[in-house]
């Protein structure tokens, strides 16, 4: 709890998307709706050090109340996408050196066992020259997600901002979504999750999908909890090699997680011959890949 409260205060410090927004306004010359709305939704609150800080109204949730009340609040809030956003990730395969910082930061944030992956760096072989390259593979957050269609209880769902999340308080553990996902992006809690005892009193945060629950499916959530606080996903900011860009397709801007440089999404994709995984399946992924080069 304390940790997540500190994050609320930090929200003003690293507003990567706000920077992006300003750049966007300058570049495009038209106001971006997302940010004008965001301004009006900020409120001033006192933190525990008696300092007056400004936070986004959507990040505030009652710390008081039972664990169940907090869980319900988070579940309800997490079902709706952040307004006017369309999150995308760009993975530059030419830069990936298999450092695997993305995997470890993801596993620690989401309380995963070492064999459970929300993001998995795969060693792939190039068809034309036979050389190997490394391909980080998170959930593709498809715009036509096969996992969501087959879920019998609406536990996994697609948000208006492009994210595919899962509610592990609702999941019945039928694993139809695992069968349906062509990217093998989902993992199941076959046993009691890692450190289940330690986290058992925490309310369930649907946007972070923690604490994990035995008998339910878990998956990459594009760090929805971080996005709400205008921060980059865990994997993106952990990368030492500048592999990841993350941002908003509506604004046509993405920020590199290592260099913090913000670039035009459309330009980046076009100039680097970007592609999506298994385009022919019609899943419409939100993750783009820039091809490996000179590897």
């Amino acid at each position, binding site marked *: 709890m304390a940790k997540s409260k500190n994050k609320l205060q930090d929200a003003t410090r690293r507003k990567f998307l706000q920077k992006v927004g300003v750049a966007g306004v300058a570049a495009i010359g038209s106001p971006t709706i997302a940010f004008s709305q965001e301004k009006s939704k900020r409120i001033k609150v006192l933190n525990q050090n008696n300092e007056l800080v400004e936070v986004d109204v959507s990040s505030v949730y009652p710390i008081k109340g039972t664990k169940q009340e907090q869980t319900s609040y988070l579940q309800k809030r997490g079902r709706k996408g952040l307004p006017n956003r369309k999150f995308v990730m760009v993975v530059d395969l030419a830069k990936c050196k298999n450092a695997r910082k993305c*995997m470890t930061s993801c596993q620690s944030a989401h309380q995963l066992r070492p064999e459970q992956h929300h993001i998995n760096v795969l060693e792939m072989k190039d068809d034309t020259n036979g050389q190997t390259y490394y391909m980080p593979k998170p959930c593709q957050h498809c715009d036509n997600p096969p996992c969501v269609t087959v879920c019998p209880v609406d536990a996994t769902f697609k948000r208006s901002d492009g994210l595919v999340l899962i509610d592990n308080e609702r999941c019945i553990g039928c694993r139809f979504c695992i069968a*349906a996902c062509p990217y093998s992006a989902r993992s199941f809690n076959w046993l009691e999750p890692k450190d289940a005892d330690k986290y058992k009193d925490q309310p369930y945060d649907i946007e972070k999908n923690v604490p994990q629950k035995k008998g339910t499916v878990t998956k990459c959530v594009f760090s929805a909890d971080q996005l709400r606080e205008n921060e980059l996903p865990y994997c993106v900011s952990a990368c030492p090699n500048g592999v990841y860009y993350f941002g908003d397709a509506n604004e046509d801007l993405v920020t590199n997680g290592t260099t913090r440089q913000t670039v035009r999404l459309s330009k980046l994709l076009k100039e680097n011959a970007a592609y999506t995984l298994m385009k022919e399946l019609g899943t419409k992924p939100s993750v783009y890949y820039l091809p490996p080069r000179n590897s």
Partner: protein
Amino acid sequence: MKTDTTYKDLSPEKIENDLLQTVNWSRSHKLWMTALTIGLVVCLYFYYTQLRDGLGVTGMNDYVSWGIYISNFVFFVATSLIGMLISSVLGLLKVKWITPIARIAEMIAVAFAFVAGLVIIIDMGRPDRLHHVFVYGRIQSPILWDVVVVTTYVMLSLLLLYIPLIPDLAICAKKEGLLPKLQRRIYKALSLGWANTPAQFKIIKNGIRMLAVLIIPVALGIHTVTSWLFAMTLRSGWDSPIFGPYFVSGAFVTGCASVIILMYVFRKQYKLDHYLTDRHFNLMGKLLVLVSLVYVYFNINEIIVPAYKLREAEAGHILDLLVGRESVMFWIVQVGGLIIPFLLLLLKPMRKPGPAALISLIVVIGAWFKRYLIVIPVQLQPYLPIQNVPDSYSHYMPTWPEIWITVASFIMVIMIITLLAKLFPIISIWELQEETEKNQQS
């Protein structure tokens, strides 16, 4: 028309006496049920460990996330379809020889369809949230369709078992001395005031006909929807438009074979040689040949079409089956469990009760492993490589708890069939009496 001589020595009184003798609580029956109960309790202990520790006690993993629970579910749904083929399709076609077999087929339908529903709960990670399916159910999901059709099929099959039973229940209720008083009272209540009037016969026959028609689309529905659990995904190997008819045709093979086995067991156990005659085994054997041929045809389509092209996404799976790591099981199942049995059944001596039952047993075992081959190998050939997980994730081997829990499902089926066979006449008394009377008149 040739006069049917199958039951020529049977008077209505003899039929009644012979067929009622199975309705009792014999000592051997009690011992048998006790043994089954003990077996079930032992197996259910393993289900308790699964509830306590999670589905991790099974051999499933993030890649093979559907194991033998699901392939067993497919097998159970498949077997239950035979009720529809025999009592409805053949019944509506006025095929006479099925009269003593229809109730056996219906017992199989009820038992397998009901336990199939339990098997799917066994596979759930959170069985405590079963009610979520009704509270939050989404109509887009094939699982919802499956819940609806399986429930409907169990209900219709129960009715199709019960309604033809009504006149027989009235007969049972009158049998003094044979059964406890309470049991006879229950029969009386269940017989709904049956008094053998022509008007009542008319109602019951109309009712049976109506149910027989209704159950056909529902039965096709349960197995087609079950095939869609696979076919509606983008996995190569499951992503096949013929999966519905492929599953349905396979269902009749295991169903026919199960009926032959059960006919054999009842005939031996209850000395029903005059009722389940060699002629019935002969004809059921022929029916099994017919449905096997249809299934072979679908197998040829399902395997050869992708094997000819070896499209990249499908090549791994198809080669696994034909020449790779699953090939031994694949060829044993296809040749030993399907081709050789149907070739043997073409020979008349092989359609005698003993050989037919043995061949059917092999067919059923083959059919169970066939479902394994449909469900599991596809998952070991995902589009993207299996990496950074324990070595055990790149293959699948069911664990002992998983196997015992699966055995439990078979024990439950056998218990239900045993109970039904002890509570009610295995063969419809009134329908057989009616038929022998007609034969004698003609």
